[in-house]
């Protein structure tokens, strides 16, 4: 089981889109892919065509003491999705308290799924420090930090790296962390400069530059992945390349049970 946490320090960087599209792209590369939504916004499901009326999810299952396997839905592309689930405020608070009290909750839940060594689990998380992110960071073998090519996002990266240092780097089953820069537009000088600075600072850690592309948001409106909606656009190309890098990165990561 190779666990990849998709994180960001700041909201609105397109983390859920990146998680969903990378899941599909990895699936198209032939991997078995599970994607779990640890974000109370419960928005990941929309990227996989799951009905808005569907209420099941990992929050409800955990509170009810049911196994995760019950929450799984399969997307048309074959990704197995575990939504966050619909809960009221009180239940959410109870759920978060539960996570706070059980630091190994995520790990043990994933173990109950009985996955193969080569199966991939992607974890979508809410922006900024939270119990969800802590669970994800303490479990993941690979962390992908999503950021935008702007000054504000760039400024938050040290904080994100600090969290990775705290929760990941000392673990024996941790492999590496990397960056995906989303919504790149090199025709704007500032964006270009920030990309250049990031390239200079992070080098090979950058595994993806995803260009700003209207097809990405249009695809969501049509209930599709951009990979299927516009095969030939630049963003599709970028996600495919990124998945290839990620796939190479996790090849030797996290062979632990």
């Amino acid at each position: 089981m190779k666990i990849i946490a998709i994180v960001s320090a700041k909201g609105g960087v397109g983390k859920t889109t990146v998680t969903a599209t990378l899941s599909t792209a990895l699936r198209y590369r032939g991997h078995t892919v599970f994607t779990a939504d640890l974000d109370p916004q419960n928005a990941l499901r929309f990227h996989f065509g799951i009905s808005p009326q569907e209420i099941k999810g990992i929050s409800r299952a955990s509170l009810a003491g049911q196994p995760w396997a019950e929450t799984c839905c399969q997307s048309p592309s074959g990704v197995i999705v575990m939504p966050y689930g619909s809960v009221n405020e009180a239940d959410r608070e109870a759920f978060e308290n539960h996570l706070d009290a059980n630091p190994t909750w995520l790990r043990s839940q994933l173990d109950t799924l009985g996955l193969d060594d080569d199966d991939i689990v992607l974890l979508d998380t809410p922006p900024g420090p939270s119990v969800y992110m802590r669970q994800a960071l303490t479990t993941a073998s690979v962390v992908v930090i999503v950021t935008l090519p702007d000054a504000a996002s760039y400024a938050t990266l040290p904080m994100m790296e600090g969290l990775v240092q705290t929760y990941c780097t000392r673990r024996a089953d941790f492999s590496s962390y990397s960056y995906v820069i989303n919504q790149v537009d090199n025709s704007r000088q500032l964006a270009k400069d920030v990309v250049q600075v990031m390239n200079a600072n992070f080098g090979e850690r950058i595994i993806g530059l995803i260009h700003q592309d209207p097809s990405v948001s249009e695809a969501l409106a049509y209930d599709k992945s951009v990979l299927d909606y516009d095969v030939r656009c630049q963003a599709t190309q970028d996600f495919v390349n990124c998945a290839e890098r990620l796939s190479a990165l996790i090849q030797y990561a996290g062979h632990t049970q």
Partner: protein
Amino acid sequence: MSEDTDLPAPRSRFAAWLTRSGDRMLSLKLWDSRVVRWMAMLVATALFGLVVTVPLDLYEQLGFAATGFIVAMVLSKTGSRLGTLAMMVLSVAASLRYMYWRVTETLGFETWVDSFFGTGLLLAEMYALIVLLLGYFQTAWPLDRKPVPMPPDMSTWPTVDVFIPTYNEPLEVVKQTVFTALALDWPVDKVKVFVLDDGRRDEFRAFCEDVGVGYVTRDNNRHAKAGNINAALQVTDGEFVAIFDCDHVPTRSFLQVTMGWFMRDDKLAMLQTPHYFFSPDPFEKNLETFRAIPNEGELFYGLIQDGNDLWNATFFCGSCAVIRRGPLLEVGGIAVETVTEDAHTALKLNRLSYNTAYLAIPQAAGLATESLSGHIGQRIRWARGMAQICRVDNPLLGRGLKLGQRLCYLNAMLHFFYGLPRLIFLTAPLSFLLFGAHIFQASALMITAFALPHILHASITNSRIQGRFRHSFWNEVYETVLAWYILRPVVVAFINPKLGKFNVTAKGGVIDESYFDWTIARPYIILLLLNMVGFGVGAAILFNGGSIEPITVVINLFWTFYNMVIASASIAVASENKQIRLAPRVAARLPSTVRFSNGRTIACETQDFSQTGLGLTLPADMEVPLGEKVQVSIFRNREEGVFPAVVVFNRNNRLGVHFENLNVKQQVELAQLTFARADTWANAWGNGVRDTPLTALKTVVRIGFRGFGLFFKHLYSMATAPRHTRRASAPKLDTGDK
């Protein structure tokens, strides 16, 4: 001796065994002894002398020749340089044996006519033999120098001035070179770019101020380009000078690749890189052989300069080179005494025991001369300049040179004297067919038995040495086109080196309609007609019988036919194909993206690029209106440049876009992502199809037939065209020697 990567792998187990045995023999301990080496040399020389001089009758000679040739064929299958050297020895033996026999047995001329034509042919043959021998010497062991990395500490890197001399070239051409020079990967405070404008043009000054490069002029044009550079040396101070003709665009890695050797070798004064052309020269354009057949320059930059490098005799070629300022000033700057100031400067540096080096990695590319007349004008200058050096600073004489250097420079000079010998070879059989002269006092069979080994050995040996850079029989074509034109300037310059001026080679132009250059083609037409007459007369003699040996006639007919093919191929070169674009395209598949005005994107790749636009291959047919404004991205690893452009063409998945209003920063960036890419030219270098003599012969014969047809077609259309529509004035060849 390790395997030579230049050569094809051994083609059989026997050849592989032979290759290994040769290597083992060379690695024997006994060669370490000086005595053994000298003894071996002595014995070999004595045996060699015997091989060259021993008289044999016809059948013995035939047997000897056949054996030698079979051995050479076997050697040609081996994969080591030892095999090549052995082939050279066999070839030299066959040729010297032929020449010895020729001088001792075939010169009993009976009439004045015989001895006139006979002596002429002999002298031409001797010239060819000397050039053959010098050529073997020069290319015996190409050095194959590799780049040396720069030290990691950038503070130790030297300062470099980049000179871009120009006289009358259009600003658009010079701009590209300036933009790529600005894109050079070198510490910003250690590189300065200067445009050296001998035209003193205001638009150039304004452009240089705009983009922030140096603009240097002088108040006269003395000594043309050499004087221009020397004047700039007075007002600049970089430790090194990199020189680019204004139409040679360097790659961004140029300095990093070339400067390492200067750091390692304090005595290194000049390092040259190949002149690589991304547009076809007139041969390639008019014969449609671009990238299929090695062009005229590839032999020099692919092999000869690499061979010169072994002897520390690399020539400076005027562009795409780096020179250390100190030694350059020591020899008084760029040489001004001759019109090939570049080679002469290198000679002077070598005389002061400075080293010169060659690095066979294209790190710059340029425009080839677009018309045959321009091409010929340039070669005339080279020929004249070499003849001048031969007179004013003869490499065989004077101090400071090693024997190897003297011979390399000598060959470079002698090479340009091929005009007369080539014309003699192209007309020699006519003296027999038309005048009945017996220029060879020997039976046809004896001639065959001696001359054929000489020719065949030289041909297969050269094919092995030069295979990647010159195909068999093309030498004849290239020389025939130029022979008549360089003959007079070379003789004039040799008699009086002060005559003649520097003529600038025009480039980057447009040939707006196809035409036949009757003026240029005149010598080839005369050669063709003469040989046709000779062929007719010879055929008549053959059919009417008579006292003449038929085999002699047949041999002469073959020779005449070959000459007709070569003359016709030259005529084909003079049939100018039109060249439409001012800014030539470079075929290259670079990852790119088009962003349409509605924001939609499509990932694709380029088909070609030019200074002004891109050809893109779309993954599918798309509806794109002409005139639509788009943003085009070009990628180079993580780098991405975005350029505004407008769609000018859209058909069959092909999208043509024209850049719009690029600012200076964007121009430099575009240059970095296209022309200045380090790998752009190196990938195509020396990777063409290797020579196989029979295929090459077929190609040349095919082109000969085409030229033959073209000649009569053009003749017909000229005869039938109304007088007033004929081309008013064909471009006059400016030989610069008036």
